[in-house]
């Protein structure tokens, strides 16, 4: 009997998968699964630590499009090119697959993929006499936010991430900055955070949040905003496409039948402010149960698993965003946010995220090892600015400085 230790994040899809593993163990009675379920930040720290120090505690790690290219390049992950044909690698969405492939080797299997988009309240828009275009601009968003805001009634026109963290506010802001023509680094890896484009991005963001955002937005992350939206306190919310299934779920959401979707906004500069992310399963190179781990990864990311979820929990709950075949499925097409999700994912291009040329890949991140640390600190400065503790200029100057320091320390 082999034991496969799986480190996962504690989000809904992963928890659901834990509940369905009987199916896998029935097929593979000689494999025992051990789950290590952790909150996202803890998970990231634990797996990074483990893989960097070659601790070998995990056989399968849940990682994202940020880690895969970096770790793959280091040779820390087992190539998944040899997964069985039935698994059908060619079925993966090209943008997603591209993000998980390094030099032709697929290093992680996508469990679900996501982009970001606008979720809005159809009823409130109607009440304001407005209509949301398919592909709004930032100015249209601002106008809609202004129209829907009713602070007395605790309805805030727009909810955005404000909580500091490279995977929190900086994911949103980096994606947003792309549509403002900003970039993290120029071709020589010189940071541009206090440049005009970033300043414009952050000022616009502040303007939205301060005027139409909920109180205490600087500590709101995905969860907090989800909860606010579900309670009907947000007019709009720009966030991950996976959120669509939660906000349209009548069990948790008071506004389930009033949610509309739109592409992330742009500024007419050719790039939209949406991101691309895939929670994926990778196998660390030191694992002593590589074969069993591969079997598990193949099962969890297979079409059959999708079907299994659909049969047990309904199509709205299947992990989205990874396979073309899912979007070609007639059943799935009925899901209200399916098309918009696919559209959003296709609209992202990790290899050319910004208007100007960049030396890196990654839409809402820069795929270098130092980025997480840098962006978290930058996020903290911006969060502090949002909380009113400093001006945007101060925040960005500090961000520029600390980024320079870190990049220098890393040897750029």
């Amino acid at each position, binding site marked *: 009997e082999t034991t496969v*230790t799986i480190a996962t994040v*504690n989000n*809904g899809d992963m928890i659901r998968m834990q509940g369905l593993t009987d199916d896998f163990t029935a097929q593979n009675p000689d494999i025992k699964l051990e789950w290590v379920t952790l909150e996202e930040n*803890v998970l990231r720290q*634990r797996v990074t630590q*483990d893989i960097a*120090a070659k601790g070998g505690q995990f056989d399968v790690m849940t990682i994202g499009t940020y880690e895969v290219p970096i770790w793959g390049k280091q040779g820390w992950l087992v190539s998944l090119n040899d997964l069985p044909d039935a698994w059908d690698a060619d079925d993966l969405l090209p943008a997603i697959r591209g993000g998980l492939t390094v030099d032709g080797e697929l290093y992680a299997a996508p469990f679900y993929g996501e982009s970001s988009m606008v979720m809005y309240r159809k009823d409130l828009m109607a009440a304001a006499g407005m209509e949301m275009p398919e592909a709004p601009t930032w100015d249209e968003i601002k106008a809609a936010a202004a129209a829907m805001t009713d602070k007395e009634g605790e309805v805030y026109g727009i909810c955005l991430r404000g909580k500091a963290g490279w995977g929190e506010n900086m994911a949103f802001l980096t994606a947003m900055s792309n549509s403002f023509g900003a970039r993290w680094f120029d071709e020589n890896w010189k940071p541009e955070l206090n440049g005009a484009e970033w300043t414009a991005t952050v000022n616009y963001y502040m303007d939205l949040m301060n005027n139409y955002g909920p109180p205490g937005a600087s500590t709101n992350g995905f969860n907090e905003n989800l909860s606010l939206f579900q309670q009907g306190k947000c007019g709009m919310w720009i966030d991950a496409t996976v959120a669509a299934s939660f906000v349209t779920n009548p069990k948790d959401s008071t506004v389930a039948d009033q949610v509309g979707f739109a592409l992330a906004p742009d500024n007419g500069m050719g790039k939209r402010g949406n991101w691309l992310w895939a929670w994926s399963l990778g196998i660390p190179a030191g694992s002593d149960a590589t074969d069993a781990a591969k079997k598990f990864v193949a099962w969890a990311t297979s079409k059959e698993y999708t079907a299994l979820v659909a049969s047990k929990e309904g199509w709205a709950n299947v992990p989205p965003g990874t396979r073309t075949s899912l979007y070609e499925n007639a059943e799935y097409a009925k899901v209200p946010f399916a098309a918009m999700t696919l559209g959003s994912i296709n609209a992202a291009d990790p290899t050319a995220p910004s208007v100007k040329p960049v030396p890196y890949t990654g839409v809402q991140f820069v795929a270098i090892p130092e980025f997480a640390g840098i962006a978290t600190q930058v996020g903290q400065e911006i969060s502090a600015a949002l909380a009113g503790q400093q001006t945007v200029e101060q925040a960005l100057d500090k961000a520029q400085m600390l980024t320079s320091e870190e990049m220098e320390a890393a040897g750029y």
Partner: protein
Amino acid sequence: MARSVTQKRKIINTAAAWSVGLLIFFPILWTILTSFKTEAQAISDPPVFLAFDWTLENYTVVLERSDYMRFLWNSIIIAGGSTLLGIIIAIPAAWSMAFVPSKRTKDILLWMLSTKMLPAVGVLYPIYLIFIKMGLLDSKIGLVVVLMLINLPIIVWMLYTYFKEIPGEILEAARMDGASLREEVLYVLTPMAIPGIASTVLLNVILAWNEAFWTLNLTAAKAAPLTAFIASYSSPEGLFYAKLSAASTMAIAPILILGWFSQKQLVSGLTFGAVK
């Protein structure tokens, strides 16, 4: 002092103390209450205090989702084991310091305490590498050793202060009576220091139970204690206050109950030599 306290003053004291006590206890009470609410009631506005539909649903969900008993068991083994091991190593050391003091005794004691000032994050990497080398990652024994080392200075200090209050003449009497060193410590010193040892054990079980850095970083699945259990509930998608409360309640309940049952020992024993 022993003059009869007027009834009025006693009522005022009682009222003041109970208010302060309840205020301090309130967060825990609120957590426990919330764990019996539905998610909707948990965030209802205005908040409901007692008039809600009590439900065990959250506990069922939490128990279904994770193997609570294993986390609990690991916590017990790790907290208990590290304390026990610490006591076994500390008793002889404290004996030496208390009964055969030298000029350096105080220095050694303070030095031991200063090892606790080593910032854990600063030495995580080295320790991690050592643990990999020794194959101790995700093993209970590894954690037992680490937590024992972390708490050893405190254990030694506490035992030292208790031992110092035991008159050396009694140990000399045992020696005259023909007891070997081992017998002296085993039959005379240790039983006499039982109250002190009990409160030392208690405090250290609490400290080990609540230690959240090493237990989280050095375990994965097999040896993960309740601190890891709670880490999987800390912010799931959506604000599941009720489930979070249920998980929190389950994580702290065992130690809270232990603490309450033994609060007498803890209260009377926690002096660190602060009282003379």
